């Protein structure tokens, strides 16, 4: 690489424009060779499946082995004219509205805690980060047992005089129970980024604020939060994307119930495709999901871009 660069630099100034262009294309070819593995993976794992999903969403077939036919927007019309899909969108929206603020605020709180020095810090840190390493399916099954009406959580509640709760068997509590178990798994992960962000804030800023007489809260709002803006923007967007494709707890514990109260969009797309054997309807749902994800990612780039300018 060094040799190549050296040669390119030496020759650059002396050559006419046409030669430079030719050599320029040579550099691109080299770059392409190095990029090829990544581009190939992107093509196979992302571009082709997404294209297939979009194409299939405009088709229908009586079964997966029969050749599909083009039906225009029929699958989208079937989805959008169906009250069940409106319910799916409503549940998914409510889920995002609760889980994102809950996880982000919890992660900020935990990051601030871990940024302090106190006895037993190592143990607290382990308790927060260990769930991140636990396989989601295992954590889900364990929480599923804990949430049973005759399970350990209710045993504790009843021991202290609080009536047992229905948790996953109640349409009023099931979504909240899913949010709690997903946050137990996920919050530690987001906390990691915030701890790194906190450690990047120059200590002098806090010293200067302290000399000016600023208290803890003033320092938090005027120094900590503004300096964490980039990290927070990333976390909010990444958490939203991760939550939109949440699947495991619903598939293992509630299958979308009770009364469709946990029927998140990813589970519904899976159910349409693999349980009900209607992949084209499922792909239409996936396409809608992709559009939402693209919009969120675009927003992320905008937020981060603006941050860079400022």
């Amino acid at each position, binding site marked *: 690489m060094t040799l190549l660069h050296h040669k390119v630099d030496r020759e650059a100034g002396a050559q006419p424009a046409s030669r430079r262009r030719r050599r320029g294309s040579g550099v691109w070819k080299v770059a392409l060779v190095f990029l090829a593995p990544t581009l190939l993976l992107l093509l196979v794992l992302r571009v082709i499946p997404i294209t297939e999903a979009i194409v299939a969403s405009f088709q229908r077939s009586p079964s997966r*082995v029969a050749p599909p036919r083009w039906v225009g927007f029929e699958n989208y019309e079937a989805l959008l004219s169906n009250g069940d899909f409106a319910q799916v969108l409503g549940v998914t929206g409510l889920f995002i509205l609760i889980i994102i603020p809950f996880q982000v605020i919890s992660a900020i709180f935990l990051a601030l805690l871990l940024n302090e020095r106190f006895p037993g810090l190592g143990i607290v840190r382990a308790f927060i980060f260990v769930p991140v390493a636990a396989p989601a399916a295992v954590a889900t099954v364990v929480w599923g047992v804990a949430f049973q009406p005759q399970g350990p959580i209710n045993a504790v509640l009843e021991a202290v005089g609080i009536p047992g709760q229905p948790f996953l068997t109640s349409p009023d509590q099931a979504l909240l129970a899913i949010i709690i178990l997903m946050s137990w798994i996920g919050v530690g992960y987001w906390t990691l980024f915030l701890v790194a962000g906190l450690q990047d804030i120059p200590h002098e800023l806090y010293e200067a604020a302290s000399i000016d007489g600023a208290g803890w809260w003033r320092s938090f709002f005027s120094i900590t939060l503004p300096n964490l803006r980039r990290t927070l923007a990333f976390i909010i967007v990444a958490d939203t994307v991760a939550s939109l494709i949440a699947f495991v707890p619903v598939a293992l514990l509630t299958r979308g119930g*009770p*009364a469709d109260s946990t029927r998140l969009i990813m589970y519904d797309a899976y159910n349409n495709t*693999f349980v*009900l054997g209607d992949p084209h*309807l499922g792909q239409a749902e996936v396409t809608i999901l992709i559009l939402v994800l693209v919009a969120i990612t675009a927003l992320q780039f905008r937020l981060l871009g603006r941050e860079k300018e400022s």
Partner: protein
Amino acid sequence: MRKHYRYIAVAVAAATIAGIAGCSATDGGDGGGSESGTVTLLMADPQENVQPALDAFAEAYPDITVEYEYVPFDQFNNLIEQRVGGGDDSVDVYAVDSGAVGSLATKGYLVDLTDDFADKVASDSLPATADANTFDGKLWSVPLWTSLQYLYYNKDLLDAAGVAYPSQNLDEAATYQQLLEDSKKVQAAGATWGLLFGQINRYYQLQPLVESAGGGSGVAGDDLLTADINNEGWLSAMDWYSQLFEDGVAPRGIATEQMSALFATGEAAYLVNGPWQIAQNIAEDKVNYGVAANPVWEGGDPAMSTGSWNLGINPATDNLEASKTLIEFLSLTQEGNSAAAEPQGTSPTFNASFDEFVNGLDARDGERTAGLGELTSALLNNTAVNRPNSPGFTQMADVTGRAFEDIRNGQDVKATLDDAQAELQGLWDRLK
């Protein structure tokens, strides 16, 4: 490797088909198949449940290797959809649930077996199993097991509450209504749970309840794609079912797979479940139980779930003839069919195997299973109802399964059934 097999298999299959065609005039187009190659068998049962049958097959056909793949029931249909639906040739033979035959055949996921086995199934297997495997006048799979349901009761718990044992006589079968009341009495005397069902939220198990209450199977219309799951019979049956959980007679929030263990460990007064429960009771050795006739709706006709797993062939198979040889051995020979049913104590479907099974029932667990052979024949002959062979059965099982679970969790019965009816009809309209 697979591709390699495929070319060989195609050549072998072509040669064999030519051979069969050549001799069909003299032997009537009998099943038969090649006697070499590897056959992948995909089932929703752990391998030990069919191991004796696989061992017997290996001995009879040493040149055919069977690779067994176990997929848990909850993922089974999804996996068939992905692998058979995706044209995966690494599945040769797979288990076909009764009720799903029409749906799978319509989608093109099964090889038509009419010419090979229809006559044999009609003459040598239990009559109801031929219907269960036939759709649109063609045979798509062959029966492996069939099922029936008994009412198991815990003698010690009933004695403690002074409640009489339910009858083994079909004419005096316990009613669902009476069982609900008796359950409460037994619970008041100390039982944790009253009445449980082996598959507490699945269509297979609850179909007899609604059929006995006069609600029918839930399928109407000539094309079997008109939903009828919110009629009076369904509403009455589901009101009763809702009450079961409302009164704490059966538990909410516990997975259906655990029901069998709850009875076998002595925690429940009654359990409606198949003959396989006997094996679990014997294994746990914790319950002093009796076996009675499947319950009936007050004033209604008796109805009992039947049908079980069948075997079908993936059209993408690269070893059609060896696959046929395997399913013929497991379904249509006494040796294979008896061995396949033995580990779980479930009912075989080949007539001779079935007779052997019924004759052995009385002695399965000493005095506790006395009279079971006669009861079994009476139940199968008079009360068995198959799952409807609708092309939309998959959708029906999913929608009703969710509705049952919602009702179990305390949702309003009428609203839940109305929603389920609309959802199911919407899904079925897309199939028309």
